[in-house]
C-alpha cells in the first residue's frame, strides 16, 4: 500500500508535462515589463510623469482589488476603506509623530489586513454573498468615512498636509518635484504586487481560493478550509491597497476624508480591473494603463485638436463621455475585459 501511494507523487513531480511553465513565463513578462517601464522617467516631462504616477497608483489598487474580488470571488465595493487606512496611517504617523513613511506603510498594511479580515469574517460568517457582500463592504467604507470626519485626532474634515522639506530625504520619502523616485517607488510596489499575485495564483492557497470561488460547496467537501483561504486572500488584497494609499499621501502631500475614504476611491480600484479583465494577472494593469491617462489624453487632444476634430476644440467633459462609452462597450462586447477576452481569443 505504501508503495502505491508514494510512487505517483514522485512521478508527478518529475513529469515535465506537469511543470508549471505559465508561472515561469509570467515572471519573465513581469521582468521585461518592469525593465521597460523603469526607463520612462527619463523620457517623460514633469506633467506626464504626474499622470504616469497616478496610473501606477490605480494599477496597484486594481491589482490589490483583483486578488480579493477576481481570484477570491468576493466582490468588494469598499476598497476605499483600506486605501484610506493606508493614507491616513501614513499621514497621522508622519505629521503627529514624525514616523518615517516606510514604517507607516508597513503599519498601515498590517492595520488594513486586520480590518479587512475582520470585515470579511463578519460578512462571511453571516453568509453574505454576491451583491449583499458588495453592499456590506460599501457600507463599511462609508462608516470609515464618517468616522474619520468626526475624529478630532484625525483632523476631522480638514485632513492632513505632509510638511514639505527643504532637502531630499530617503527616510521621509520626499524628493524634489518630478524626481524619478516618485515613479520608481510605485513601480516597485506594483512589481511586488504582481509578483505576489503570480506566486499566489500558482500556490496551493491560491488554487484553493479559486476553487472556493468557483464552487464553495465542492471545495469544502474536498477538505478545503473555506474561511481560512478566503481570509488570507482578503488580507493580502487589503494590505496591497493600503500601500497604494500610503504612497498617495506621500506623493500628493495632502489627504482628506474624501481623498482617502470617498466612494470614488473604491470605484478607482474596480474600474481598471473590470476594463482590463477581472481574475487575470495582467488585466488590472492593462486597465489602469488605459483609464489612468485617458482623461488627460483626451483633454490634450481637445486643447489643440487635429484638423478633422477641430469642431471639438474647447469642449470639456468629453473625457467623461468617452470613459462611460468605453465602459459600456467593454461590458457589452468584452465581458471578460480587454486582456481577458484577447487572451481567450489567442488561446482558441
Amino acid at each position, binding site marked *: 500500500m505504501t508503495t502505491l501511494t508514494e510512487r505517483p507523487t514522485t512521478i508527478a513531480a518529475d513529469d515535465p508535462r506537469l511543470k508549471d511553465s*505559465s508561472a515561469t*513565463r509570467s515572471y519573465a*513578462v513581469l521582468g*521585461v*515589463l518592469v525593465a*521597460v*517601464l523603469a526607463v*520612462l522617467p527619463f*523620457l*517623460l*516631462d*514633469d*506633467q*506626464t510623469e*504626474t*499622470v*504616469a504616477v*497616478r496610473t501606477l497608483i490605480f494599477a496597484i489598487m486594481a491589482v490589490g482589488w483583483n486578488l480579493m474580488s477576481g481570484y477570491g470571488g468576493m466582490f468588494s465595493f469598499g476598497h476605499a476603506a483600506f486605501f484610506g487606512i493606508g493614507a491616513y496611517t501614513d499621514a497621522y504617523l508622519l505629521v503627529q509623530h514624525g514616523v518615517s513613511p516606510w514604517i507607516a506603510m508597513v503599519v498601515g498594511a498590517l492595520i488594513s489586513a486586520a480590518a479587512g479580515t475582520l470585515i470579511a469574517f463578519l460578512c462571511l460568517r453571516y453568509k453574505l454573498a454576491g451583491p449583499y457582500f458588495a453592499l456590506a463592504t460599501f457600507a463599511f467604507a462609508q462608516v470609515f468615512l464618517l468616522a474619520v*470626519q468626526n475624529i478630532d485626532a484625525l483632523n*476631522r*474634515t*480638514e*485632513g492632513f*498636509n*505632509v*510638511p*514639505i522639506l527643504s532637502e531630499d530625504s530617503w527616510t521621509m520619502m520626499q524628493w*524634489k*518635484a518630478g524626481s524619478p523616485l516618485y515613479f520608481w517607488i510605485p513601480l516597485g510596489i506594483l512589481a511586488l504586487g504582481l509578483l505576489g499575485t503570480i506566486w499566489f495564483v500558482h500556490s496551493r492557497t491560491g488554487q484553493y481560493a479559486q476553487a472556493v470561488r468557483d464552487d464553495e460547496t465542492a471545495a469544502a467537501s474536498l477538505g478545503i478550509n473555506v474561511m481560512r483561504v478566503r481570509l488570507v486572500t482578503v488580507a493580502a488584497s487589503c494590505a496591497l491597497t493600503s500601500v497604494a494609499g500610503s504612497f*498617495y499621501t506621500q506623493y*500628493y*502631500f*495632502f489627504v*482628506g476624508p*474624501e*481623498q482617502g475614504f470617498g466612494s*470614488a476611491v473604491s470605484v478607482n480600484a474596480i474600474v481598471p480591473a473590470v476594463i482590463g479583465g477581472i481574475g487575470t494577472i*495582467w488585466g488590472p494593469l*492593462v486597465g489602469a*494603463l*488605459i483609464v489612468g*491617462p485617458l*482623461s*488627460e*489624453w483626451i*483633454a*490634450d487632444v481637445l*486643447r*489643440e485638436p487635429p484638423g478633422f476634430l477641430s469642431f471639438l476644440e474647447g469642449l*470639456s*467633459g468629453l*473625457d*467623461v463621455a468617452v470613459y462611460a462609452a468605453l465602459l459600456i462597450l467593454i461590458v457589452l462586447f468584452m465581458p471578460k475585459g480587454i*486582456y481577458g477576452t*484577447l*487572451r481567450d481569443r*489567442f*488561446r482558441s
Partner: protein
Amino acid sequence: MKKLSLAVVGVLIVLTAAACGGYEPAEDEVVIGSVHPLTGALAGQGEMMHEGAQLAVDDLNEAGGIESLGGDSLVLRAGDSKGTADAGQIEAQRLVSEGAVALIGTYQSDVTANVSAVAERNRVPLVIDVAVDDVILEQGYEHTFRIQPNASSMGRDGAIALAELSKANGKPVRTVSYLHIEGAFGQSVHDAFEKEAADQGIDVVSEVTYPATNFTDATTQVREALAADPDVVVVTGYYPDSLLIAQAVRSLGGDVDALYGIANGGFDDSAFPADSGPAGADVLSANYHYAATDERAQDIRARFEQKYGRTMETSAMLAYQAVVVIAQGLEESGSKDPEELRDAIADLEIDDPLLEFGGPIAFDEAGENENASVTVMQIRDGKVEQVFPDEFKTADIVYPAGRAAGAKE
C-alpha cells in the same frame, strides 16, 4: 500567450509616448495658469471664474500688456481640477511645466491645499481667488497668497457686524441659533463666530449641523434651531442648502429678527432672490463682496455679462482680481522669474481693490490679505444690496427684518 504579452508591452509603450508633448510659450508671452473645476458638479462656478480671469487678461493686454516687460502680453492657460484634489495637482503641475509663472485658483479648499503644495515645491506663486479654509496658509508656505478673508476672520467679522448693525437699529441681538454645514468650512466659521460673539454679548444658544450631501429638506434642522427661540438665525453653507433653509424658516413661520448668512454661498448670489421668492426677502448676508460702490467694478461686471451672457458673481471678480495681483507683481518685478514675481507679490499694495475691502490689498507674512473684510448684504426688492457698513451702502437696511425673513405677507 507569448504574442499577446509582446502586444501588451507594445501597446503600453505607444500609449505612454502618445501622452507626451505640450505647450511652449512664445518669447513675448507671460503664462498664468488657472486651475478651476471646469467639469463635474461645480463646472458652472469654475467656468465663470475662469471667464473672470480671462476678462482680466484681455483687459490688461488691451491696455498694453506688462509695461516693465516691454509690453509682453499675458496668456491664460486653463486647468481643469474636475473638483478633485488629485486632478487639480496634475493640472497645476502641467501648467507649471508648460511655463506658467504663476497660478490662480481653485474654489475648493481641499483642491487648493493640494495645488498650494505644488506651487511651493515648484517655487511658483499661487494666488488663491476663492478657498476659505484657514489651514491652507498655516503650513508655512511662502508661495501662496489669498485675497479673500479666511474662514475664521469671516466668522469674527460676521459677529462684529451683526452686533453693530443690530445695535444701530435699536434692537441689539442677544441670542442666535447657528445652522451650518458639516465639515471644515462650516465648523471653522462657526467656531470663530462663537468666540467673537461672546465678547460682543451674543449667546449662541443652539448649534445645528446638517450633512453636505443628500440634504433635501431642512425642516427638521430649522425647527431645532428655532426651538431655542433665538433673536437671529445664522447660516453658513452653500447655495442649495441655504435655499432650503430660507424656505423652511418661512414655512415654519419662524419669529426671528433676521436670517443672517456668514460666508454663505447662497444668500448674496444674484440668482438667490429669484429662486427663493418671498422666503428670501430681507435676508442678510455677511460675506466678501465685489465692490458694488466702485465704478470700475460695475464696468467690469457689465462687460462680463455682455461677453459671456451671465451675471458675474463675486467669485469671478476674485478671479479677475487674482490676475490683476499677478500682473501688478510682474510690473513691479520686471521679470518672468517666478521667484522674483513671488517677492514682488509679497511686497505689493493694490489701492483700488475690486472687492469691498476696508483697505488696499497687501499680504501679511502668512500670505493672507491684511485688509480683507466682509460687507453685509440684504435682499431688497428682489436684488442683493450692500447695506452695512455705511461707507459701502447701496440701499438702506431693514432691521429687524420682519417676522422671519420674508414672513410678512
